[in-house]
């Protein structure tokens, strides 16, 4: 039998997550549809005046993307916990922190990336011009992995708990605020002709911090939930 290195194990986990997701396509599409629906609610709520919508667009699209990314977090560990696979991962000789990071990465690929690709379409509905659409996509691309990583902490903490879905949102939405401020802020700043180097560096810094610290918190929370 061949031996697998660390990358081999993580690749195996990635392959597993992706193949499961592709066989349950509905679960991948639901957050995307949610994104479209929520973003469309705002014009219905505030009126179709184009100047107002244009002004609101970065914030509205970012908030809708954030909520949609959060939707699928609950299932991150729940199905594996129910069939015993999560215990096997916790008992694996591969560090749980790495496995958790791989899970967050697949969450980004299956949830975050579709949002990034869908955002420009919605942006057009709000009247954003093509340059702003590009910045929007870039900020979402930098921000959604962070959302997946921070979200995995919440998913691990609320595993198997009553009312997990709503509790998860309450726990992690405050933690999402910095990403929201810098992400939406970048699009606005760009539209106002100001530089966005600062925003993008801060988003990148948040991503790097999450990559290093979120898996640590998540794996601690998972072991606590498995006790």
């Amino acid at each position: 039998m061949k031996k697998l290195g660390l990358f081999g194990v993580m690749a195996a986990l990635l392959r597993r997550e992706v193949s499961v997701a592709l066989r349950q396509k509905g679960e991948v599409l639901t957050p995307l549809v949610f994104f479209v629906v929520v973003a469309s609610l705002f014009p219905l709520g505030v009126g179709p005046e184009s100047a107002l919508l244009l002004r609101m667009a970065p914030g509205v699209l970012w908030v809708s993307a954030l909520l949609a990314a959060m939707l699928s977090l609950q299932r991150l560990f729940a199905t594996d916990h129910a069939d015993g696979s999560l215990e096997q991962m916790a008992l694996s000789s591969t560090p749980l922190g790495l496995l958790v990071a791989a899970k967050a990465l697949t969450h980004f690929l299956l949830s975050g990336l579709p949002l990034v690709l869908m955002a420009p379409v919605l942006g057009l509905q709000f009247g954003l011009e093509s340059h702003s659409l590009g910045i929007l996509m870039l900020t979402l691309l930098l921000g959604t992995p962070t959302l997946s990583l921070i979200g995995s902490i919440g998913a691990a903490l609320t595993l198997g708990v009553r009312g997990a879905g709503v509790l998860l949102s309450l726990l992690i939405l405050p933690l999402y605020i910095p990403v929201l401020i810098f992400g939406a802020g970048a699009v606005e700043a760009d539209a106002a002709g100001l530089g966005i180097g600062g925003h993008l560096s801060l988003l990148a810094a948040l991503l790097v911090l999450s990559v290093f610290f979120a898996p640590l918190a998540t794996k601690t929370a998972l072991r606590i939930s498995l006790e």
Partner: protein
Amino acid sequence: MNTQKIHWFKFSSPQNFYFLAGRMWPWFAVLATVLAAVALWIGLVMAPVDAQQGQGYRIIFVHVPAASLSMFVYLVMAGWAGFGLAFNTRLSGMMASALAPTGAILAFLSLATGSLWGKPMWGTWWVWDARLTSSLILLFLYLGFIALQSSIDDPRRADKASAVLALVGAVNIPIIYGSVYWWNTLHQGASVTVKGASIAPAMLWGMGLMTAAFWMYAITMTLVRVRAIILDRERHTEWVKHAVE
């Protein structure tokens, strides 16, 4: 006075701490009352009327101390929680649980007083200034902690899980506060504060004493609350059965 060294570790058992806390809290209650009385006298009577804001600014003597202390309490709570997680002590988790409601109340008080200040100043009940918004987010962090604790049945697991949450929150607080302050300066919002140049020394004394008063109050309430938590968690032990007779 007993010249023997105090064996502090003795008090890490819930039973011993219960009785220690029982003797300690009245002292802190007295301190809190005295400090608050002095601070209020300074704030309401002694401090001069502000040039721009008139008498209404006096609410700062409650608003700023409540806001600062609510954040301090969160860090202390996270500290206890982290200690409990690292050393697997039961009492640390109970202390963190006891601190949470007080911290939440202080955060809420900061919001309420900020709101009361805003109405006469700007005619609105809420202003998205940096301190108020940060206090609001801090309140959410407290509520999240309390909600997570109450939704997990097993107390040990609840303590450990909320400890992780408190630590993650504590690490994030500087980042969140920083981003909110940055967001606020960008959007040039109204500010719930007294301008720096016109802060009289009396005002600083008043705020300082009130902060100390709130601190003593927080300690009092935490000690009282932790006693109730100890009784609840340890109710199956012999000493509790005797204590509640």
